[in-house]
């Protein structure tokens, strides 16, 4: 099983790159969703105040 993950002497560089890519996408996904939630929350609060 470990052979599958073995990239020879390039382990750090290959897995580091994959890590950078995955972390970036997760970060983008979470910031996009959290900012949307925050804006919706603010709009809902405004609507409640109006009512």
């Amino acid at each position: 099983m470990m052979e599958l993950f073995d990239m020879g002497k390039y382990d750090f560089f290959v897995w580091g790159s994959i890590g950078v890519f995955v972390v970036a996408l997760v970060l983008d996904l979470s910031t996009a969703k959290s900012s949307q939630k925050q804006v919706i929350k603010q709009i809902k609060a405004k609507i409640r105040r109006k009512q």
Partner: protein
Amino acid sequence: MNRIVKFYHEMGSPPSFYRITQHWLMPMLLLALGLTAYGLIEGLFFAPKDYQQGDSYRIIFVHVPAAWMSMFIYAIIGICGIITFVWRMKVAEAVMMASVPIGALFTAVTLLTGMLWGKPMWGTYWDWDARMTSQLILLFLYIGVAGMYAAYEEDPRKAARLAALVAIIGLVNLPIIRYSVYWWTSIHQTSSITLTGGSEGIHSWDMLRPLLVMALATKFYYIYSMLTRAHTYLLKTEAKKQWVAQAVSKKSGAKP
């Protein structure tokens, strides 16, 4: 033809854009996740080793799609910038500003993965080479567009027009990035794939397939993330409009 024109006009109206594109989100995310998983698994575990670079070439499966996206997204920003500047179309503003953080992130990924590839291949993480420098300038352009918008955020229409101006000026950097490896002496290799010349650097279909799948995955991911952010932008800037109250109430399942 009438249907295409009607669709175009519908997409130009914020409520219609929001209503139509909210159904695209889940399919786009699922396609992006599925294709990313397939592309990475095939590229990392099943694609053959490169005869010169060994396993280190596998960085290509994240580096090249990220690099393509960094330029593709900037081109979208530039086109939306022109539409924003000339016709003041609100949806174009939303797409432009929604694309900025995603493009900046893909540019940062390109630079970081390029550095990680450069060290074992060139013996250095960084060189002030034309390709790398122009890519770094692209990151600064993204930051510049975002910064310009943030500086005038109290007036979103004005902020978007000024950000659009920066974006349009920055378009000049795209051909520089693209042809930098041909115009100047560079340690960076020439393009792996070109639209007109096909695959110049990669000749094995087993290597090319996961790369193309990853390129497609990043496109779907961009559409998902851009639409999510564009929706947020429209909700925020049109907060006083009736359609926003209806959309928000619908999202929470309550009556407006």
